[in-house]
């Protein structure tokens, strides 16, 4: 991997082609959206054009300055985010503006995270503040939610409402990967187990079953990546404990809510309401959809968040829905490639855990609303409306990119150059 000679080259034909295709797709999306509006909303036009310009600026910056190895990974993320943006634009221009701001925040998170984790010293320095900070965030969330008696996994901060558990997902993988990075440090192993149990425990108290399940799954993945001899035993025990709590604590909830699983049509107007609507409207859309804004699923509660896959199928067709699924499969392939070429096991663990989390959450969402899995009410990464989910998705993407192609600025920096050498030498710092 000889980065130094290639990075200064002009963008290659392939990358320009991909970018042009994505831009055309989004431009057509914009035309489709505004053609349905009675009076053309200029704000909608600005949102789409702004997004396309943002993509081009980022890609130029990326390709010219920071290396283009994982260009396709970012292109996929832009493609998926663009679909979410389009759905928001069909609901209303204010939704589109909010969503665009969220995507910008997501991209910012992505860049900041790439900068932070390029240096293992920074990573090590950040592990305690990150762990403690994330637990505090969950505690504050729980405390405030109890006071306001609102939905327990939301935190209202003036006009902005955030979902702390989404942000903690990013930190969780960070803490997990850094704790288990060193083979010999038993202390970190115990700390990580304690941290995981605390996170899952707090999610139990918030009754956020879907997210608790995702954390549990991610814990298993991180544990699997690092398991060996004695620590395997501890990790298995911790996993079993979490699983047991999960089952016991959520049993009544699970029994009630999962009663409709595989029987949604018999419970069309109760527990199967959302799934049956997703299925009937997805089927109505056929392979190519009824047209943006033409769907009826949008009138169903949570259509643009949990049920957004159904909206995509109804309005843009099953073909687009499947393209979304394939896009996530591609993210998985990039993660494997990145992990296998990564400089240290921190990056490998983080990349694999991130991709697994994204795919797991995607499966819970897509196969949940289509009744292939029980419905858990989690969002579709990158696409569902809502800032926390988007920021989390982009944050997770940073781990994959960091493993494959570390973010590097053109200015000469001792830490970077040493890092690059050690990478090429295949020895961890």
């Amino acid at each position, binding site marked *: 991997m000889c980065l130094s000679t290639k990075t200064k080259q002009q963008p290659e034909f392939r990358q320009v082609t991909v970018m042009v295709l994505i831009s055309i797709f989004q431009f057509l999306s914009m035309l489709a959206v505004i053609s349905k509006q009675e009076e053309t909303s200029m704000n909608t036009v600005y949102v789409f054009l702004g997004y396309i310009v943002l993509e081009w600026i980022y890609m130029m910056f990326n390709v010219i300055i920071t290396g283009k190895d994982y260009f396709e990974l970012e292109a996929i993320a832009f493609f998926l985010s663009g679909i979410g943006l389009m759905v928001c634009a069909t609901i209303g221009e204010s939704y589109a503006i909010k969503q665009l701001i969220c995507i910008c925040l997501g991209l910012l998170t992505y860049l900041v995270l790439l900068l932070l984790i390029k240096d293992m010293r920074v990573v090590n320095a950040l592990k305690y503040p990150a762990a403690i900070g994330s637990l505090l965030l969950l505690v504050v969330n729980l405390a405030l939610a109890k006071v306001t008696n609102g939905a327990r996994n939301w935190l209202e901060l003036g006009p902005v409402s955030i979902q702390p558990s989404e942000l903690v997902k990013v930190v969780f993988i960070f803490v997990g990967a850094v704790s288990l990075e060193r083979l010999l440090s038993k202390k970190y192993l115990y700390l990580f187990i304690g941290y995981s149990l605390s996170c899952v425990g707090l999610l139990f108290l918030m009754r956020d079953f879907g997210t608790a399940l995702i954390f549990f799954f991610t814990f298993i993945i991180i544990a699997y990546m690092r398991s060996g001899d004695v620590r395997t035993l501890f990790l298995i025990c911790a996993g079993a404990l979490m699983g047991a709590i999960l089952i016991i604590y959520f049993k009544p909830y699970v029994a009630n809510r999962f009663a409709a699983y595989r029987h949604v049509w018999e419970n069309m107007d109760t527990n199967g309401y959302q799934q049956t609507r997703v299925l009937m409207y997805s089927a109505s859309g056929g392979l190519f959809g009824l047209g943006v804004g033409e769907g009826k699923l949008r009138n169903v509660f949570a259509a643009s968040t949990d049920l957004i896959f159904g909206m995509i199928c109804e309005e843009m067709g099953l073909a687009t829905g499947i393209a979304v699924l394939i896009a996530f499969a591609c993210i998985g392939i990039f993660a494997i490639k990145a992990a296998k070429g990564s400089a240290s096991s921190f990056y490998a663990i983080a990349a694999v855990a991130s991709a697994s989390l994204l795919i797991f959450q995607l499966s819970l969402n897509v196969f949940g609303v289509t009744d*292939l899995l029980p419905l858990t009410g989690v969002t579709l990464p990158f696409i569902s409306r809502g800032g926390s989910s988007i920021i989390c998705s982009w944050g997770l993407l940073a781990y994959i990119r960091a493993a494959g192609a570390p973010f590097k600025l053109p200015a000469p920096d001792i830490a970077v150059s040493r890092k690059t050498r050690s990478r090429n030498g295949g020895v961890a710092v």
Partner: protein
Amino acid sequence: MRKTIKRASVVYVFILMILAGVGILISQFVTKGSSWATNKANAHIYSSGTVVNAGRILDRNGVVLAESKNDKRVFASGEVLRKSVLHLVGDTSGFISTGAHNLYRSQLSGYNLIDGIYRLKTSGKGSDVVLNIDSEANRIAYNAFGNYKGTIIVCNYKTAEVLCSISKPAYDVNNVPRDLQTNPNYEGVFLDKAVSGQYTPGSIMKLITAACAIENMPDVYDRTFTCDGEYKTTDGTVICNGVHGEITFGQALNQSCNCAFAQLTVELGANKLRATAEAMGFNKKLKAKEIPLTMSRFNPSTISNAELGWAGIGQSTTLINPSHFLSIIMAIANGGKGYAPDRILTMGTYGRLVPRKIDVMVNMNPETASALKSMMRSNVVDKYGDYKYPGLELCAKTGTAEIDGKTSTSVFAGFSQRSDLPLAVICFVEEAGWGSGVASSVSNTVLQYFANNYDF
């Protein structure tokens, strides 16, 4: 470190799970998409459970029986016409489950895997369903019933096309009676008697008994039967409709002599009779193309000879489905092949390109069919009188089904033997009194319409 990196391959497992999910999802869309998309909760098609947007339903001559205009379902003009095709077209809420609105909702919605219901969405029209029915014949038949209830079906026995089918009582979809659910006059109004009805057959059941005798008694044509008004068995008596004296097998069918047929039944025995009936589709779940038929039931008594005798002349516990029995008549008319009556001419996106497949419902020995045909012809020539059915050259069997506590049902089943009028008919008129006059005259009225207006 190396071990950890190797384990990155675990992500392949999750990728495979996505691909498996995609596969299952696609296969479910292929197999169930049509029923999902046409669910009553789909607001593209239904509004509070009633059809608003769908393709047109037409009769064979292009008369529009139902169509969608501005998110509303509009029906044919003419109250009698609407009533006469009610059970074929069906209501927009799907109460009439065998009506086209419910049974062919997927075709009406224009649904297909590739486009979904895009056509419906963009044009407000799905794809059309064209019935084999002549709506004018239906209107004439409905009027011919007068105030009586019942059903008549006319079917082309060479092509299986159902040309006329009504079920009474019916109501006007444009003016639904408020007491529809409570008024006893509308009892069973959502049931299409042509396909979902069950009737005591009365004397037309003697055709089945005759078929059994022809196939199991080689000497039946040489025999004579003596009728003195009643036939005594070991445990009861079967009463005849007259005193017929000494008669042959053929005359027994002409006169519909209960004594002769009860005697034949007892001699043949319950098992042989049941075998003949079941070979013709009794006690079986049958489908007339897409329409499930109510089962025809025949369970002759193996204990009581009197009950067995009554079963052999179409009383006792025997029940027949009109469409199924029509197919038996069609088998007699068509050299042993009784087709499944088919109401649909074309439907769906590719309906005009692919002709409908003809299904066989009843198989009969061709020799039995031919023997029954000449006996039925003799019924008309020697007993009922050809003059009653001018020009039709009918082969027929009439019947009167006695029902406890009610006036008898008048029954008529037959077909024209003219090769240019290959029509079979079955008609039940409820509470029409003793004799087969009403069913016979309704059938004649409808068949005359076809004889005058069609060149088959």
